[in-house]
């Protein structure tokens, strides 16, 4: 090989490594340290406080509310999205229905901020799309001030999340479905299997890898939810804490109250929850590999 290898390697690797070290690794490392301090923005006045921040975390009613709401998101968003996406992916398999996938996919390209503002309009009580629709189809009695009712507000956020995510997973699943050998379906048809049995016994097991990926991605998104809640809901996080999520607690404690140490402890908690989720999902959705050859 030509000389100058190490000079090239140094020139190519050092700038990205410095960038990564300064802006990614060092903040992550510092976060674990700050979580054990009472850092409030003045670096000359930092004390180690042991586990105090974590103890406070367990007694912080708003953070615990956020934890519960993220838990609900974790159940509702992946299940709702994956169920809808599997259905639409299977239903758009035939010729002539493919263009639907193109349409369904589009919300994936919108930024969360746009989705949040759009859905805030949809839910607006008097001039919003949803109440206008209900009035138009004669269901005026179902009209609500959606985001202002504590029992409904979080579900409104969940609906917006599912709305935005479904199309992406339709495309993901349908790509996986198209790689399933046709003769498997033909054999099943010969054995007299109905469409539902085929879907359950052949399609879903053979695209299980994609479904697993979907669970992990959607699970991670469900542990976040910050942008939608912060833009869409009143307060934000309201009414009365009914849409609080952990990320919002962190953001508020850090950048409104200046409790940076405490906020870092929340970050550590979110990190361990994310990690647990990823490991748990991989374990729980593990199945025997299916041979297709």
């Amino acid at each position: 090989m030509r000389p100058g290898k190490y000079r090239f390697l140094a020139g190519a690797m050092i700038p990205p490594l410095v960038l990564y070290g300064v802006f990614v690794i060092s903040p992550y490392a510092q976060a674990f340290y700050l979580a054990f301090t009472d850092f409030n923005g003045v670096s000359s006045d930092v004390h180690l406080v042991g586990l105090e921040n974590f103890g406070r975390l367990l007694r912080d009613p708003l953070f615990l509310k956020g934890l519960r709401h993220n838990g609900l998101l974790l159940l509702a968003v992946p299940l709702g999205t994956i169920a809808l996406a599997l259905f639409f992916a299977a239903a758009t398999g035939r010729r002539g229905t493919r263009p639907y996938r193109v349409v369904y996919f589009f919300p994936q390209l919108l930024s969360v901020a746009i989705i949040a503002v759009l859905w805030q309009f949809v839910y607006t009580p008097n001039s919003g799309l949803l109440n206008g629709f209900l009035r138009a189809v004669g269901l005026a009695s179902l009209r609500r001030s959606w985001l202002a009712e504590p029992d409904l507000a979080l579900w409104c956020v969940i609906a917006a999340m599912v709305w935005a995510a479904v199309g992406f997973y339709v495309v993901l699943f349908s790509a996986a479905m198209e790689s399933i050998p046709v003769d498997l379906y033909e054999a099943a048809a010969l054995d007299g299997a109905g469409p539902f049995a085929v879907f359950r016994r052949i399609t879903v097991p053979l695209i299980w890898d994609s479904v697993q990926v979907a669970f992990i991605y959607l699970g991670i998104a469900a542990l976040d939810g910050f942008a939608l809640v912060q833009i869409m809901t009143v307060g934000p996080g309201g009414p009365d804490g009914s849409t609080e999520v952990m990320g919002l607690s962190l953001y508020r404690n850090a950048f409104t109250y200046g409790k940076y140490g405490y906020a870092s402890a929340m970050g550590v908690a979110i990190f361990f929850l994310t990690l647990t989720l990823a490991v748990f999902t991989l374990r729980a959705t593990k199945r025997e590999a299916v041979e297709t050859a």
Partner: protein
Amino acid sequence: MIGVRARFLHLVLLGWAAVVTLPLLWAVMSSLKTDAEIFDSPWSLPSRLRWENWARAWEQASIGRYLLNTVVVVGGALFLTMLLGSLMAYCLARYKFFGNRFIYYTLVAGMLFPVFLALVPLFFVVNQLGMLGTYHGLILVYAAYALPFTVFFLHAFFRGLPAAVAEAAFIDGCSHAGVFFRVMLPMARPGLVSVGIFNFLGLWNQYLLPLVLNPDPDRYVLAQGLASLAVSQGYRSDWSGLFAGLVIAILPVLVAYVLFQRQIRAGLTAGALR
């Protein structure tokens, strides 16, 4: 019997298509109405197309400025990410040196960490460097956080390229950098396009990082600007202006999607399955 079922299925598909498109069409329609018309009935058509709403959003509500900021930051970050990411992926994939595996796994591990964990220290790091609310600060941070996935994705790609071509180029007297830029990078083009699309959308849609690191309203990116307008315009109740801003923010993405929809869907889904 089968005909009935197919028709019912089609109706369901049409229903979801309506659920997806109606809010968007409604936003376009509302952006061309007066405030009075919007409040009167959300479903009525505009009596006359009020393009002046768009002009107002562009100038007074600074959507034009936010769009420019976004283009500068996302363009800069995308260029930096692709350059550094492909260099790093190439070196890690094609050269043996001490620490190679360690660097690779450190990068991959970075993808597992939620950004929320880094948020507080990151704010102080950027602040100490005097980069809060600057273009270059945002560009560097965006690029740093987009790096792990880019390297991870392109690493596999560079591994798969044939070694014979690079060797031939070396024999012809090409330098290491020359082999990378003139031989390997062009061969990796399909991978670069996929990860480029993936990164572009990811960076374009950033909200959390600019919210924390970019407090100067003159430097707001589109997502940030729109969110803050949704609050302030709400108070001034310039609804039509806000709708117009929303539609202006959606349009570039829609146009790109119409032109490149196949590549975009392929690029994004390929990214997810890695």
